[in-house]
């Protein structure tokens, strides 16, 4: 028995693409008028899981926590990953959870999936909340070693080990690509630049086969969908939602306009003299470099 089981946690997020996103006049997001979709980083995580499907014939499961509408995100992730199991954790008590309480819900759900998960994937961070905490926190609750910014991976199914390439970037240093080997299970959060490469003919054939299958499955996604409320999930109500969240949002304010750091000279682009002046200034700024 060398069946590989992989899971992906995903999120329904505001759709930041033109035509779907709406901003208030003051530059903040207009949530009411903005459509929702599968988060872009979640989609990349689903792609990473699909790689395990194509290459290792893995069984893929996808989970999310959210309102009933979040099932559309599960459907979209299924189309990308050919998942056979879709989990939605949906209960009013889950609402308002911070990352610690969200991780508790997701951990409990992943443990309820068919088969023990060998790899769990998450996206890099959500486009709206942007904390990037839910992945690593779910990993720690599961007791799985966590690896972030994963660029690619190869599994040794016989030995139950994984080789991972990941990106480390720190301000003031060059980026580093680190290659790590670890025993399964692991939790991987996938870097935005992750790309699956299918090199052999047989992999490309499997890729096409499973892609077709994924499309058919996602058209009938309800067959694969399981919805859990608090009771069905069997999670401690004091550890989820608002009661289980250590942090609260105390205040939201517009960032006050700071003191002007520079005094701008305003130039009118319809005035050729002003354009000449702009270029003269630009040349001056650049030639100052030569003297320095």
């Amino acid at each position, binding site marked *: 028995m060398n069946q590989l089981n992989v899971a992906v946690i995903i999120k329904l997020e505001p759709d*930041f693409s*033109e035509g779907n996103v709406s901003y208030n006049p003051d*530059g*903040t997001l207009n949530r009411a008028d903005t459509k929702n979709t599968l988060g*872009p980083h979640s989609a990349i995580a689903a792609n990473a899981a699909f790689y395990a499907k194509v290459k290792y014939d893995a069984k893929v499961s996808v989970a999310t926590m959210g309102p009933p509408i979040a099932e559309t995100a599960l459907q979209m992730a299924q189309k990308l990953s050919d998942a056979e199991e879709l989990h939605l954790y949906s209960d009013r008590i889950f609402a308002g959870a*911070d990352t*610690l309480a969200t991780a508790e819900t997701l951990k409990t759900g992943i443990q309820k999936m068919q088969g023990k998960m060998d790899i769990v994937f998450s996206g890099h961070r959500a486009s*709206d909340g*942007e904390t*990037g*905490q839910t992945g*690593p*926190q779910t990993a*720690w*609750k599961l007791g799985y*070693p966590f690896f*972030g910014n994963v660029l690619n991976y190869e599994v040794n199914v016989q030995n139950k080990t994984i080789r991972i390439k990941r990106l*480390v970037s*720190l*301000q*003031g240093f060059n*980026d*580093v690509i680190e*290659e790590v080997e*670890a*025993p399964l299970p692991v939790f991987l959060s996938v870097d*935005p*630049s992750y790309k699956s490469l299918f090199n052999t003919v047989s992999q490309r054939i499997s890729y096409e086969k499973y892609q077709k299958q994924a499309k058919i499955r996602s058209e009938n996604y309800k067959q694969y969908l399981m919805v859990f409320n608090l009771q069905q999930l069997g999670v401690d109500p*004091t550890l989820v939602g608002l*009661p289980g*969240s*250590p*942090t*609260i*949002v*105390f205040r939201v*304010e*517009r960032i006050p*306009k*700071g003191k002007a*750091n*520079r005094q*701008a*000279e*305003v*130039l*009118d*682009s319809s005035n050729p003299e*002003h*354009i*000449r002046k*702009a*270029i*003269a*200034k630009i*040349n001056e*700024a*650049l*030639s100052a470099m*030569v003297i320095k």
Partner: protein
Amino acid sequence: MTEENYQHIYVVIELEEGKLAPVNLEMLGKARRLLDNFNKKYKSDEKVVAILLGYNVKQISKTLIEHGADFVIYADHPKLKDVINTIYTKVIAQIAKDKEIATKISPENAKNFKKPRYMFFGADSIGRHLSSTVLVELESGLASDINKLEISDIKLTHQYKTDGKPVIYEKTLEMYRPDFSGFLWTTILCLDNKNPSIEREYHPQSCSIIPGVFEPIKPDSKRKGEVIQFSPTIDEQDLKIKILSRKIIKSEVDFDRCKAIISFGRGIKDFPEKNIKLIEDLAKQLDAEIGVSLPISKKPFAVSESISSKYMIPDRVIGTSGKKISPMLYVATGISGAMQHVEGMKDSEFVVAINPDENSPIKDECDIFIKGRMEDVIPKLIEEMKKQSLVV
């Protein structure tokens, strides 16, 4: 003297190849200033404690003390040479909960010590993940990507936290994080549940801090501090995680290469593809690297795949969520000037903004403001530039 369960600010230090990342000294500086005020206000004597993990790292303690640490707790082990999240998380949590260490830090106040009061991490690809896992291990809350911190007593009524009754939370860390738009500030608090039905203590109050935001203190070689060694326990299972290689890569986007950087934001919206081509032309004229604002990295516009994968990427983001730059010339086109962007470009020598809206915040951050739409302005600039001979 009060005997409290939670004391001190613990700052988790990050090393890359044995060297200190700048954010470490910035965190220590902020911790020092906060705690000096705290000790004065509350008549206490709490400490700034640096946690240092690595291999052959003891000598770094001196720099940490010079920059504001009262204590350096260091764990030295070959397996700690590079950051393996699992191992680091466990060792940091061991140190944070260690009563012997707390006793060495403050012998008279350690009797009831459980965990640190506050804890700081760097908001980068090490600290973001490490803070997340450590705080699960310490069973408390975390705010990420903070750029302002204050400590105050807060009166609060909350459905769950206080069972709907007003409660004063003393010595609360107010953690400010700018949202993705850069226009909103959200203050996050990490608070004990004082509701009798779900009573729970949540400490340390923790955050990850955006690099480049806080000032380090002026290093003082006479500052006194103590260095304490900690012998970590590393699980056998975790020793199976091996770093096979580490390769330094130069990003394709190299902001240090050029004297000039030109960035674009959502102002490309009317003709995204055409405008990006114009920006490329201008960049060629100026020998400039091209940057973007954070919203652009979310690929908000439909453009060809080659343009999208070249430009609408996190690697090009300038600001607190991306790179901090200081070129001789910075050209911001179609960028409104959200704070998180300004933080990344404000050290530029000369700044030109191209924008149709004179009320955009970028006007306060530039030396010349060319009023107009980029599709009109850039061709004129290029034409004029060709006329005047460049001295680049």
